[in-house]
């Protein structure tokens, strides 16, 4: 138990003193997972929209498949991607194995199903009356879609936040594709695994606390952006909307 307390103090110490190695690991974690989340969001939000708004054969099956992929073990994604990125694999030519770029790719693949699935759910959650009203008021198909996306923005934001959370907290892809190489691909989760293996429990807990602080900052920023969007929209309407 004493490890938890000393871990907490060590976390404060590492943050206050801007420990260069920890700062580098933390920055790399943030950049990799943020990049993966942005790539995944750019792909998943339109993809989710496409699946929600268009009726096609096998739609239910596709959604079930996407939801199944929520559960894909991170180590399995890491292993499959490893076999592709290995020098002896089909994509070996690009030299992405054991690089941050490879880790971004892996984490993006990992969270695309989550964000896509939750975007579909978010759009499905928008009251049907809204789209009916929009159409009756003479909105074009495009305008209707945009308005529904706007109504669902909070739920879409949650999808993106959850995707980021899964990316920054996962260890399977980071270990298999990154390789936990010091000064190159070591991120917070693989560093925690390493320190736990060595038996430095307080340091592991300190790194865990730093990871949560980063997550807190990212979530706050994303929420501010969404809140900002609402305010902008209200101002555009000429005052608070009731």
């Amino acid at each position: 138990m004493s490890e938890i307390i000393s871990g907490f103090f060590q976390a404060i110490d590492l943050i206050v003193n801007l420990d260069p190695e920890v700062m580098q690991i933390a920055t790399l974690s943030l950049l990799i997972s943020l990049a993966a989340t942005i790539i995944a969001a750019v792909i998943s939000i339109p993809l989710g929209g496409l699946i929600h708004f268009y009726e096609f054969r096998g739609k239910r099956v596709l959604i079930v498949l996407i939801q199944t992929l929520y559960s894909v073990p991170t180590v399995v994604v890491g292993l499959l991607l490893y076999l592709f990125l290995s020098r002896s694999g089909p994509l070996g030519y690009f030299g992405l194995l054991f690089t941050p770029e490879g880790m971004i790719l892996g984490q993006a693949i990992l969270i695309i199903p989550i964000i896509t699935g939750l975007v579909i759910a978010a759009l499905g959650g928008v009251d049907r009356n809204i789209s009916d009203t929009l159409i009756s008021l003479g909105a074009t198909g495009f305008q209707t879609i945009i308005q529904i996306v706007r109504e669902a923005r909070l739920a879409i934001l949650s999808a993106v936040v959850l995707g980021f959370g899964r990316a920054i907290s996962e260890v399977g892809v980071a270990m298999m594709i990154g390789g936990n190489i010091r000064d190159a691909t070591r991120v917070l989760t693989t560093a925690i695994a390493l320190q736990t293996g060595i038996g430095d429990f307080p340091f592991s807990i300190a790194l865990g606390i730093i990871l949560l602080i980063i997550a807190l900052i990212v979530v706050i920023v994303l929420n501010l952006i969404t809140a900002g969007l609402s305010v902008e929209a209200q101002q555009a309407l000429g005052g608070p909307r009731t």
Partner: protein
Amino acid sequence: MKRFSASSLGVLLVILLVGGVIIAGCTTTTPTTTTTPPTTAAAEKPKLLIATTTSLYDTKLLDYLEPKFESQYNVDIQITSQGTGKAIEIAKKGDADVLLVHSPSQELAFVKDGFGINRRSFASNYFLVVGPSADPAGIKNMTPEKAYTALHQKGTNNTAGVYFVSRGDASGTHTAEKAIWSKAGYNYTTSVVKSGAWYIEAGKGMGETLQMASEKGAYTFTDEGTYLSYKSNLTLVPIISEGSSLLNIYSVMTVYNDKQPVEKIQMANNFINFLISSQTQADIGNFGVDKYGKALFTPMSIKVPTAPAGNVGDYSTPATALKP
């Protein structure tokens, strides 16, 4: 209709902001390639990727030697530590340049199959059987083989307090443990595994296995380095520390395959020659003394252990071969 145009304005803002985030994202992703401030200059340096085992990496010996090698050669050493099985697989696929492990039988097969060249042994130490200080199986100071026989008998008889936690992960340490079972006359797969609740396969790294054994008050088989660095978290004490089958030999080899550029092979050979050089051998012999009061490794320059043929590789001839 007014409400609509206003909403479209909001939508436009959404798009702009998302776009802004993406652009910001792009500008922040660019630095990821250079987010290695300590090695920004090293970004252009050639890389030498070493695949090694967790138990060796966790002792920090390689972290200690890395800057010494890098100061001699214009190269950026990158080390990935994985379980022995995984490290060998990575090397077989040509994803590493140097393989550094402690599992002679697997190394010899690796070299024989043409995946590696220039195998050199550079250090050794001893495995330990550790367990609760009360020693419920009464095996203290037995030979490893006799101790295992006693553990097996008492374990399968459900003697109170007799448990053994095995790595169970095809690691170098696990391979060494299996070799002792075999020497003690047991068929590992048929009469040790699943022979009762006393034999626990952890499937974890050495540190976590030690932790598990400590929590259960069980015996386990460990390398000395990990035990010493983990000791303060454990209730386990060394029970058996002598016996030829406890010998743990560390070897290094250059990864070879037809796609491997000759420069990488040469640099890997440089690294091997660095490890067996008299200066590095002396450094290895001093490593850990300040922290643990004793050296974690015995370099070949101090003592060449006696072991079955092939287990100790060449330790003095410079590595020069560029192909098998």
